[in-house]
């Protein structure tokens, strides 16, 4: 229904402190875009700029083809759901949900209909005459979502809506948001979170923010399978991707890397003759590692194991060559590996190569 276009958007506080710069992003109508990034990367600020709660200090923001930099929040056709719910504590659920329509001087019948439809969608009908303080956290967040739905906005903005909920409720509410999106396929949604699972499960596309800008934009699996940089590679996926330094010793359709730690890695990433001898980091996801008898990518002593039942995490002894101790995630239960020397191998299709922090796939 409405597409968003951010062109060279930037944010500076007090003329000196730069938080965001050169943000270019096209969001298509009906997409669910998730902003992720480390804390302090400006993802909430960007959302608040789209909402109109923060001034855009550089660039332009268009919603449905109209420049809205100086349009007040209420007229941008957006609705926002806050982390702390931000319900009006002195109003009943019904009044909370109808406040915006009352301000807009809509007719009584229209307000009642909109509120009751939203309440039905969110199973809030029995609670309409309660005050927010008489509701549980999950119900409060549903009221906040209901308040957004009632306004019938073109764009929904979610600012870490699940962070204040406990783990079980978070999963339930996440599924509700996904269902909500399916019921309103034409509405655009922008969702800020620091939770990878939320990002991976909800997003049409994920925007990874880092260093005041966009690190990568893409579908969840694209970010997982083809990360553009070491930063994105390590940010998406848990535990983070292992990075092992090495030197290219064989080029062509397949690339061979001799690792500083002694192993040899083969990757499906293609290279040219000019790349011979290049210093690279080999990226290997913990879950892509398998135990090998010989010809290993990595071999080391297991310092610690974490048995989770479905998987077993192996934490290796710190390695002078790798920045972080290597971690492997093996399916199933593996007993008695602690203190043993274990060799790991990886499918060449799942070996990533980075030079100076950037993936060799994107040259």
């Amino acid at each position: 229904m409405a597409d968003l276009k951010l062109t060279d958007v930037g944010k500076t506080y007090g003329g000196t402190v730069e938080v965001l710069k050169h943000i270019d992003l096209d969001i298509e109508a009906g997409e669910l875009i998730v902003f992720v990034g480390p804390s302090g990367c400006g993802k909430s600020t960007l959302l608040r700029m789209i909402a109109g709660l923060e001034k855009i200090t550089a660039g332009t923001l268009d919603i449905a083809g109209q420049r809205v930099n100086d349009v007040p929040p209420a007229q941008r056709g957006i609705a926002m759901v806050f982390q702390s719910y931000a319900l009006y504590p002195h109003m009943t659920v019904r009044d909370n949900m109808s406040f915006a329509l009352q301000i807009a001087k809509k007719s009584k019948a229209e307000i009642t209909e909109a509120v009751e439809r939203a309440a039905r969608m969110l199973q809030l009908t029995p609670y309409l005459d309660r005050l927010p303080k008489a509701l549980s956290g999950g119900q409060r967040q549903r009221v906040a979502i209901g308040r957004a739905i009632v306004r019938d906005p073109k764009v929904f903005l979610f600012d870490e809506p699940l962070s204040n909920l406990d783990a079980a409720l978070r999963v339930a509410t996440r599924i509700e948001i996904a269902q909500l999106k399916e019921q309103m396929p034409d509405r655009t949604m922008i969702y800020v979170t620091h939770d990878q699972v939320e990002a991976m499960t909800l997003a049409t596309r994920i925007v990874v923010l880092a260093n005041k800008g966009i690190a990568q934009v893409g579908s969840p699996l694209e970010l997982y399978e083809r990360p553009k940089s070491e930063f994105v590679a390590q940010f998406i996926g848990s535990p983070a991707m292992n990075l092992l330094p090495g030197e290219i010793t064989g080029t062509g359709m397949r690339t061979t890397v001799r690792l500083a730690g002694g192993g040899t890695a083969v990757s499906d990433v293609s290279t040219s003759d000019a790349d011979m001898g290049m210093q690279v980091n080999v990226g290997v996801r913990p879950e892509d590692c398998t135990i090998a008898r010989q010809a290993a990518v990595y071999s080391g002593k297991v310092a610690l194991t974490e048995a989770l039942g479905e998987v077993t995490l192996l934490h290796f002894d710190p390695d002078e060559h790798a920045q972080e101790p290597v971690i492997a995630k093996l399916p199933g239960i593996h007993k008695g590996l602690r203190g043993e020397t274990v060799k790991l191998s990886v499918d060449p299709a799942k070996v990533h190569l980075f030079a100076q922090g950037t993936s060799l796939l994107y040259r």
Partner: protein
Amino acid sequence: MSPILQGVLTIIIGVGGCLAYFYGSNLVLDRVVFPARNDDQGRNIRRATMVRPWLFLLPAILALGLYLVYPVVGSFIRSLYDRSGSNFVGLGNYLEMFQESGFRVAVFNNFLWILFVPAASTFFGLLVAQLTDRLSWGAIAKSLIFMPMAISFVGASLIWKFVYAGDPAIGIINAIGAYFGAAPVDPLQIPFWNNFFIMIIMVWMQTGFAMVILSAALRGIPEETIEAAIIDGANPFQLFFKIKVPQIAGTIAVVWTTITFLTLKVFDIVYTMTGGNFDTDILPSYMMDYMFRDDGRATAVAFVIMVIVTPVMIYNIRQARKDV
């Protein structure tokens, strides 16, 4: 004995006495009265736990009884006797008082005070608190407005006597009037309205109090609710009256009632400004008219004041508790 030694001794006896009382009384309770021994152990511990709070409360109850309850009862009894204090007159003082026009004027004026002063102080306090909230020089403005709080009622009255002075060379009101060619007036002698000119002094002093409390309350409103209302399309007025004020309604009630019973106790302002002349008497100043001349009548007035203040105070305490 040197005064320093005397002071130190007093502190030692006072603090030591307190410690000795609390320690000793608990010891007696646990060891002698309800010892936690033998078969009755559980029951005795439970009993001791029930008695203990009263042990701790006892000194405070005694002190409050001596200095608060006794005077109330004593005053009531005194109000049933005539001016000499030796002849019992029953409710005579009250009946006589209710028939007197001076008392009725004082009651009427007092109601004007209760209506106007808390309303005006709270309103201006809220206005200032809201307007100075995000201002760079808001802190300076606030401390200037708060300053009259530090002046005594008599001092404030003296300042305003100058403001209202009839001589254009002294009084600013008449100076402004004279500039426009008006004849000098004495605001304190204009019937009915002179009450308001006196009340302004109290409003001037209490606005600072209201402002400080309400300012803190406004700051306590969650920022997100305000942002949510902005997104919902509320304009600044709707934001203030529909989102902010309802959220601090409890605090407004506390400020309002606190100023109400401050107002019910004020006598110094009226006494200093007019001495109760020109129909400006209020109950406390009316009481002072009789104090030392007819203590029977004065205590009767005091009792009427107490009866009026009590419900306001109960409401105030309840509201303040609810707020926490």
